[in-house]
């Protein structure tokens, strides 16, 4: 952690976005995590993504549970809404908030302890329901706040800092998300912002349940030989499926790639994602193929990263429930209390 606040002085030449803000405007308080924590890189990635998306910070709600990862919303988007909820209960709080105000952008920030252990049930149901959000798991395979025990995502056979071998099977969050019906599933690495930032931006633009598993080395307790979530191990075993480029709305699309190498994906709001395939025969719209490749590569000890699955026809909780189009706080007395004539009509409908 750091004792001084990050100086307000910035490079006078840094760019501003369409709203006139610099990237610095999207920062939060200075991090109190350990120096070198992967989570801080993810925070920097989130800052960069929201800056580039020209999103006003007050249109964002960031929600988290408990843990190192759940502390991080303090360190980015300082002018956004947000709260730390109960351990593992972020998904329910987020679902409720989303139902009440569908116009905000929801960022669920969680870790492997918060989502794969105490909050596994919440995690599952939130994805099942297709809540429109970005669910980020900052995954380091270790309980850092309690000094380095294996978490539920630690690979079987990997070693703790004290030399103990993990005998338990691991939970693969990406596999679970695919199975549970998330409509945007990706994995990335905190040490590769070139990959992470476009994925974050695409996930924010996705209407539906977007899940990103970000492997984020714990420098204090899980960055040693024998760990499968260290900087070195992830760099050596990272199998990149594809690279996402995020095209701003106004830029004309000029593809200079070979046919079949690039896929352009038009978002619901007109933005375009350009997916450069690294693994040529991989189709990110095929959920079953995605599950297969995940298992097959995992068996070889490789970590698959990139945009793993993407549902072009995704729907979210609100359309499934046919809820009112507007945030509840905008409804006035007229809408909430439409009068006895409306009540009579409603009752007649039930007879």
């Amino acid at each position, binding site marked *: 952690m750091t004792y001084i606040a990050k100086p307000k002085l910035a*490079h006078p030449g840094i760019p501003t976005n369409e709203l006139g803000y610099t990237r610095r405007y999207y920062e939060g308080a200075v991090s109190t995590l350990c120096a070198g924590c992967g989570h801080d*890189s993810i925070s920097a990635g989130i800052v960069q993504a929201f800056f580039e998306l020209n999103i006003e910070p007050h249109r964002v709600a960031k929600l988290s549970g408990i843990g190192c990862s759940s502390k991080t919303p303090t360190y980015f988007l300082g002018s956004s809404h947000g709260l730390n909820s109960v351990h593992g209960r972020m998904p329910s709080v987020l679902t409720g908030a989303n139902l009440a105000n569908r116009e905000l952008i929801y960022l669920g920030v969680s870790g492997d302890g918060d989502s794969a252990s105490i909050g596994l049930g919440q995690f599952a149901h939130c994805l099942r329901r297709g809540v429109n959000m970005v669910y980020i798991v900052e995954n380091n395979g270790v309980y850092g706040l309690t000094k380095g025990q294996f978490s539920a995502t630690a690979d079987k056979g990997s070693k703790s800092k004290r030399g103990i071998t993990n005998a338990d099977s691991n939970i693969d969050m990406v596999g679970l998300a695919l199975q549970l019906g998330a409509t945007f599933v990706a994995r990335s690495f905190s040490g590769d912002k070139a990959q992470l930032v476009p994925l974050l931006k695409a996930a924010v633009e996705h209407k539906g349940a977007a899940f990103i598993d970000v492997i984020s080395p714990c420098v204090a307790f899980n960055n040693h030989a024998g760990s499968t979530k260290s900087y070195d191990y992830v760099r050596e075993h990272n199998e990149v499926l594809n690279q996402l480029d995020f095209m701003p709305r106004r830029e004309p699309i000029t593809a200079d790639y070979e046919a079949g190498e690039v896929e352009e994906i038009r978002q619901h709001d007109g933005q375009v994602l350009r997916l450069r395939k690294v693994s040529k025969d991989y189709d990110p719209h095929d959920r079953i193929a995605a599950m297969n490749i995940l298992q097959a590569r995992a068996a070889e000890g490789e970590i698959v990263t990139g945009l793993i699955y993407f549902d072009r026809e995704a729907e979210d909780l609100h359309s499934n429930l046919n809820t009112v189009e507007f945030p509840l706080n905008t409804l006035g007395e007229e809408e909430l209390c439409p009068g006895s004539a409306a009540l009579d009509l409603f009752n007649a409908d039930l007879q």
Partner: protein
Amino acid sequence: MDRTDIGNPDYFHKVVDCQWACPAHTPVPEYIRLVAAGRYGDAYMINWYSNVFPGILGRTCDRPCEPACRRGRVEDEPVAICRLKRVAADFKGDIRKRLPTGAKKKNGKRIACIGAGPASLTVACDLLPLGYEVVIYDGEDRAGGMIRSQIPKFRLPERVIDEEVGYILELGVEFRGNTWVESLKDILAEDYDAVFVGTGAPRGRDLNIPGREEASRNIHIGIDWLSSVSFGHIEKIGKRVIVLGGGNTAMDCCRSSRRLGGKDVKVVVRSGFDEMKASPWEKEDAMHEDIPILNFLVPKEFNHVKGKLKGMTFEKVEAKYDDTGRRSLIPTGEPDEYIEADDVLVAVGQENSFPWIERDIGLEFNEWDMPVVDKVSYQSTIQNVFFGGDAAFGPENIIWAVAHGHDAAISIDKYCHGEDVSVRPPPRVDFSSQKMGIHEWSYDNDISNDLRYKVPLKDLRNALANIKVEVELGYDQNLAVAEAERCLNCDIQTVFDHNLCIECDACEDICPTDCINFTANGDEADLRTRLHAPSENLDQDLYVSPDLKTLRVMVKDEDMCLHCGLCAERCPTGAWDMQKFLLDVEHAGPKCRDPKRPSKAA
């Protein structure tokens, strides 16, 4: 790019912009920290060692350091480096015990210095403790040269000059005042081992336009007039005064006029306001004293009636630039401007003048009638005659004279020991880690957001009432601390060890000014286009590491680095360290001499 060689003292020296820009290479951040800590005496001594006249320079320096200051690039204005130097001088207490003393044992060498200005005094200051006998000649009865004669007392009180010139005289200078040297040949005929010429640029340029001779009673050459004012020979001037010229001398002239009875004082300049040679702050000070500066007016005639000056006529011009960017002043064709005046002060430049140097003694002069002087050793074409200050390369400022003096002293010392004066000593460089604990540094890395503090002034009415009253009150101790906190501590260097880096990006993420990048290597022009923040200041270096594990390199653009140390605080492996880089320029003495060569003097 190749990896940066941080072993080269110049690399980190350049990062300390102020010190690099200072001709005497004063370790600025070091003394500013000491001022902030209230250790004024220590701050003063650091200055004294580098620039000999902290109290004088703290009031009068031309401040090459301030335009260079990194703070001025990160926000609007640089740190008030110069006035913090004055603070060190104002509050230092008694430092006499810390000054060197004249050598008890003489080395038998005798040096003559011609002129008792800052250059000669610096030579004396460096050579006396080594055992030299130093004789200084000057036409005035007191030492100080232009410091005493040309700088108005409301900017630089006499007591400050007496004190700091006194420190040097007390080292055992043999001062021969009221002695105008008429002949270098005669001096050389005396028993001196070396001669140092520090006679300045004593001649003010004149303006030969119609009416000059007839009205000469009320037309004065700026620097001569200033010295007459300084020595009390002139105590009055007319109500309406025109000052011609746009340099710092013109500013001193107009402000002095305001204090000697000038009510309607105008500065008239040929060029535009921005092209004026005067320092921006001196122009500001003049305007603050209700002195208008009129630009683009070329003097045409002194108007007089039977030799009594009535005013001046000026032609109106505008600046035109040709394809090569060369400026010429073209008449606009508008009617001439007439300005009434009782007195005119001509401050349109000054020149060197060496009528006392015989041209047949082997001392070569160049096409501009300036002595041929080596830029490094300050040696003339007579081996034992050295030049420094304005006498060497034309009019500059005190701080240059001091730098020349230090360098010439090294040459004289080497010459007197039979050594090659072109072999120069390397600077002394010292690195020390500032790490005290996990998040503790032995410097204050929390950067102040304050804007530059104004130096309090005496109220205008009282300031103008007496030419001897110092107009600037100087920072008090609280203001000094606040201003000192604005310093970015550029001498606390970010030192990167690529062997320890695990490429976690923590430094890249935390850097408030986006200096740090991890990227594929390339040539400099290419790299500069690929960094997080615009990298357009080509005067500032890129710090490039060797290849890292991922075959990328760390590239840091030094331009905007705040030296806040957050990269090092966020680094989990200590790959970044904040190390104080202390560079001291070596001064004359045994360390400058060749260690392998037995000393002839010994």
